């Protein structure tokens, strides 16, 4: 049975998804959820409500249905059509910004699927879309490879913290050298942004504390030493415990927002343009 593509009238991203399927010679059934396919989509939505995200602008189209598989958004749909679930780690749902493909999250993807990722991103690039790449430093060779192929218009690198805390903040073994390679690769993009979330850390006694101004200064210093510049666009982000996926942090007392000014001052000793990111800014 051919996959079903729910689209919306005038939806540019739906047209791009259809272009992708045509280029791959994939047969599909289309239903315009705002026109003739309204009833069909309503029926689907009622039974699969939990699988379809309704964002600030309503439901994001296209929605691809292939048997039990549901993929929402052009990036997720095309990634699935490109390589099944092999690209799932790389492609996350992101708030769609006009002209951009976001949600390309490099650290969590399977490096073995790099060729498929490259093919997918090249397709989007050829469709005139700009690509935002997100990384926290892991999978450095993926970022390096894409950079080498001229793929990616903006890179946002989250530096979790200073080297000594990186493994704690990422919850796993981390190769500091790999993080440095990603920093260097990210710094070579003209449109780049480095960020650190002032996050809680579990201390030696098992208690929770937040990254200190000195630890943020050490992070900014690390960025300076690796990239050779004190003028990187470096941003600090407030940590909202209530929005944290890790349940153990949800009960944490939030850091007062004004506390971040001391972190900013400390970071500016090494990165002079450090700013505090606004919640509304894409991070």
């Amino acid at each position, binding site marked *: 049975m051919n996959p079903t593509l729910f689209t919306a009238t005038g939806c540019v991203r739906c047209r791009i998804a259809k272009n992708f399927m045509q280029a791959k010679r994939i047969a599909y059934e289309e239903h315009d959820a705002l026109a003739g396919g309204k009833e069909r989509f309503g029926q689907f939505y009622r039974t699969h409500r939990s699988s379809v995200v309704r964002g600030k602008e309503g439901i994001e189209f296209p929605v691809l249905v292939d048997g039990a598989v549901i993929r929402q958004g052009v990036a997720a749909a095309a990634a699935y059509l490109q390589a099944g679930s092999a690209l799932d780690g790389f492609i996350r749902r992101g708030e769609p910004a006009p002209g951009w493909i976001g949600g390309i999250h490099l650290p969590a993807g399977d490096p073995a699927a790099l060729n498929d990722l490259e093919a997918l991103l090249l397709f989007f690039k050829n469709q005139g879309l700009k690509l935002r790449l997100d990384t926290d430093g892991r999978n450095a060779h993926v970022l390096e490879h894409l950079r080498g192929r001229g793929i990616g218009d903006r890179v946002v690198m989250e530096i979790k913290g200073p080297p000594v805390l990186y493994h704690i903040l990422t919850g796993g073994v981390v190769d500091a050298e790999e993080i440095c390679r990603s920093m260097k690769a990210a710094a070579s993009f003209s449109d780049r942004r480095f960020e650190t979330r002032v996050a809680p850390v579990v201390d030696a006694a098992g208690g929770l504390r937040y990254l200190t101004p000195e630890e943020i200064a050490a992070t900014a210093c690390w960025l300076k030493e690796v990239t050779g510049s004190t*003028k990187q666009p470096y941003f600090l982000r407030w940590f909202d415990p209530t929005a944290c996926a890790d349940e153990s942090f949800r009960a944490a007392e939030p850091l007062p927002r*004004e506390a971040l*000014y*001391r972190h*900013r*001052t400390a970071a*500016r000793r090494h990165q*002079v*343009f450090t700013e505090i990111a606004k919640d509304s800014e894409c991070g």
Partner: protein
Amino acid sequence: MTYPSVHPTGATIYDPARCWNGYTVFQAKELGALLIDMNGGEVQLWKELHGMPNRILPGGHLIGSTGERSTAFGSQDGIDLVQVDWDGNVVWRFNRYEFIEDPGETPQWMARQHHDYQREGNPVGYFAPGLEPMTDRGNTMMLSHKNIIHPAICDKPLLDDTIIEVTWEGDVIWEWVCSEHFEELGFREDAKNLLFRNPNWLKSGGGIGDWMHINSMSLLGPNRWFDAGDNRFHPDNIIWCAREANITAIVEKKTGRIAWRLGPNYDETAELRRLGWIIGQHHAHMIPRGLPGEGNVLIFDNGGWAGYGCPNPGSPTGFRNALRDYSRVLEIDPISLKIVWQYTPVEAGLPFPVDANRFYSPFVSSAQRLPNGNTLITEGSGGRLIEVTATHDIVWEYISPYQGKMMNTNMIYRAYRLPYAWVPQVDAPRGRAIERIDAGRFRVPGASPGGAKRVVQVAGVLPYRPDAALCVRTDVGETT
């Protein structure tokens, strides 16, 4: 203030018995920070030390700035804020707010401070009993600039006003950014429309909109309103005023929200209409505890030209559409909005409105309440300082003799009176009264004395009438 071509400068009136005697400090145009006594004697000059404004701290220390950013790239950005001692040694300096790389200039950190600052211990920056500013520690609040893009206000770059709190060690620990509170400022649709098209466009740095131009910032300090349970007037809250927007507001320190606001519109309630349109105002602050009028808001309401809104014959585009050619010093009850005391052309004894423009400073200026109930007024555009009593008598007057060469004006941004005791390095002077000169008899060398050599009588002439008509009517009353 209109001056003839030739006029006296320095102290011109001094009644020691009715003055609150002390030193006065101000930024003399293109000269430096100048400390004078009541007779206009120049006690000390901190040569070429800038200051917006200059202030003396107890112990003879002075706050100012070592310089201003090139006006090709900035507007009124102080490079730093410094505290210097009596001998000019820098004992405290802050500049690490923003790293600036202007083309052709040496990259450097800048405070971007402008118009105001307050040192912990004193909420308003002038003498009030028991509210001494700290001199060797304490935080400093300062008004600074930041360049931003805020599409909801305007699609062009904006020069935004920020308020920052800086520790003695130089850490910025609090920041308030004006544009983040745009929707709380009360602009009507006509004003928003105009702001979007012309946010007070300056040429600096390739063009930027100085959309608010906040020109004063002080803390409320302890006050009776908060003591009575009104949390809008928490002592830590901050009052500011913005000349381009005709807004005076109080920011809640804890949340950053606007807790109290006057303007930008003065036609929305009976109280506001009675108060009248405040235009281009300066130095709005709450009179600190311990001084007569404590808790009231003192404002130098410049008049001149300011605001955004509907076009009118004086403002064909609606930019700076509020116009008035005289100034007012207003002491306002912040709850009832009633004027408790004022000094306007009427109180100055000037025929109103025909001669009202003789009390007029369309930019800069300030008012300071003194412990004996007098008010020190900086009528700044003409470089004139006056001390007036509660009953509006001028008991001290000083005209700045320092005319700028780069800008042909003797303007004074803001002057402060301070106790002699704050400058222990010199003995307090014994003031000598300056009797008022009878201007009708005063002549410059070479001028003939008054009085006709010959007087003839003309038969049948009538005496002059006190209600003689002028070319313009002066009896036009306002209707409500």
